[in-house]
């Protein structure tokens, strides 16, 4: 019994020692508006739409990011140019819903949608957090500055069948009937 009392007192004094040591230690607080930490390059914050090395929009409006988004904060309308190249007529990210999980950037086949380390996007008006395509689109390639989706995949076929240089018109199978 006597020993347990001694042990208890030792534990008490030890606890006071720990708190005293921490009292003299430098606080870990970062005083945000005055001190800012530099986020890592792969920090997931504000989302951008990037361009390919030739300066064209990378986004092909495939809706994969919108489908991957767990909080459904991405919406868009796809459209097709004359030459069969797809693009987003409008593209909207609601940052008041976004949870910055990065699943959209992971899903994107053309590396158009990317996360940036810019985390200071809060505003007074919540409607200012709805970013339209012109707010999202940047003049640059973002993370991979040599990747161009259409060098690998080609665009859709727009001209009628058989109109090409070395093509003959398709055969109408019904005309071959006996």
């Amino acid at each position, binding site marked *: 019994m006597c020993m347990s009392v001694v042990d208890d007192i030792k534990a*008490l004094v030890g*606890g*006071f020692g*720990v*708190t*005293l040591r*921490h*009292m*003299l*230690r*430098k*606080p*870990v*607080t970062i*005083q945000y508006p005055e001190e800012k930490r530099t986020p890592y390059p792969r920090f997931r914050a504000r989302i951008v739409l990037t361009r390919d090395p030739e300066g064209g929009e990378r986004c092909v409006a495939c809706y994969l990011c919108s489908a991957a988004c767990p909080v459904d904060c991405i919406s868009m309308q796809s459209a097709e140019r004359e030459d069969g190249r797809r693009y987003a007529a409008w593209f909207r990210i609601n940052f008041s819903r976004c949870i910055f999980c990065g699943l959209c950037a992971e899903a994107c086949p053309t590396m158009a949608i990317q996360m940036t380390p810019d985390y200071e996007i809060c505003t007074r008006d919540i409607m200012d957090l709805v970013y339209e395509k012109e707010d999202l689109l940047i003049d640059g390639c973002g993370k991979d500055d040599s990747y161009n989706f259409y060098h690998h995949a080609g665009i859709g076929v727009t001209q009628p069948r058989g109109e090409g240089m070395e093509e003959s018109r398709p055969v109408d199978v019904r005309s071959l009937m006996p």
Partner: protein
Amino acid sequence: MTASSVDIALFAAKVGLVFFVILTLAAYLVFAERRILAWVQDRKGPNRVGPFGLLQPLADLIKLLTKEDFLPSAADKWLFYLAPAMAAIPAIMIFAVIPFGAPLTVAGHAVPLVVADLNIGLLFFLALSSIAVYGVAIGGWASNSKYSLLGGIRGLAQLISYELSMGLSLVPIVMLARSFSLTEIVDAQRTIPFIIYQPLAFIIFLISITAECKRIPFDLPEAEGELVAGFHTEYSGMRFGLFFVGEYINIIVLGGLATTLFLGGWHGPLLPPVIWFTLKTLAFAFFFIWMRGTLPRLRYDQLMHLGWKVLTPLALMNILVTAWWLMLKNHM
């Protein structure tokens, strides 16, 4: 005996000064507690208002004063309004009997630096510290909320388990000083403070006053993890503020009392007496804050166990040993 107008003016000035200093100290103790607790937890604490956050108590005061004064519909109105005052006033009244400096002479008039030098000062303290718990109990009952009631009941149950050991731990002091007057107790410690003779009584008293000012590890009446905020759950605005500031006045007053009874009061080398008294009192306040950052809350039954089965027998034994020692000394 007719007191001259100068005496009355000096007395009024003394009382006013004590009030002002204690209330200011209590407000800044809240700030100090928040800062020190933050340091314990590797944080910085409030440092936004004014230089080093020194105007934080003022900001808190403005906030409390502008909050709604909420009255629960089922509450007992008058007791509900009365309880915070009943908790805070006895705390500050105890300071009336604590001598906080050597007697001064101002314009030919002797000014003892104590508001009222009662010859039963120690009993006055024990009586008032028992009355202070009525504020807690009545506040808890009048709120008509289960958490408040549980907090109030715990306050009362806590009182009967620490009050006995607190009173008993002071008996050897009275035996050594041969007086109930705090001024004479301080005089008796001119050479050696009583903590040297009575370390056990000091520890028992320290534990008891921690329970008395409802501080962690004995903050059972509040117990924010279990009872929301205990007896002051239903209080808001400045009424809550009164409970709150009463707790910190209690810390200062009980720290001053422990200084007076065990650390030789205002006696000390080199520095002026008032400074010595303040330093010793603030050391106790710091210790209380430090303890809050260190220890977890005791369980209800553990406090009862500690009070009745450990502290009270130890205090009784201490009285017997002191009496035996004094008798031997007088017969030698």
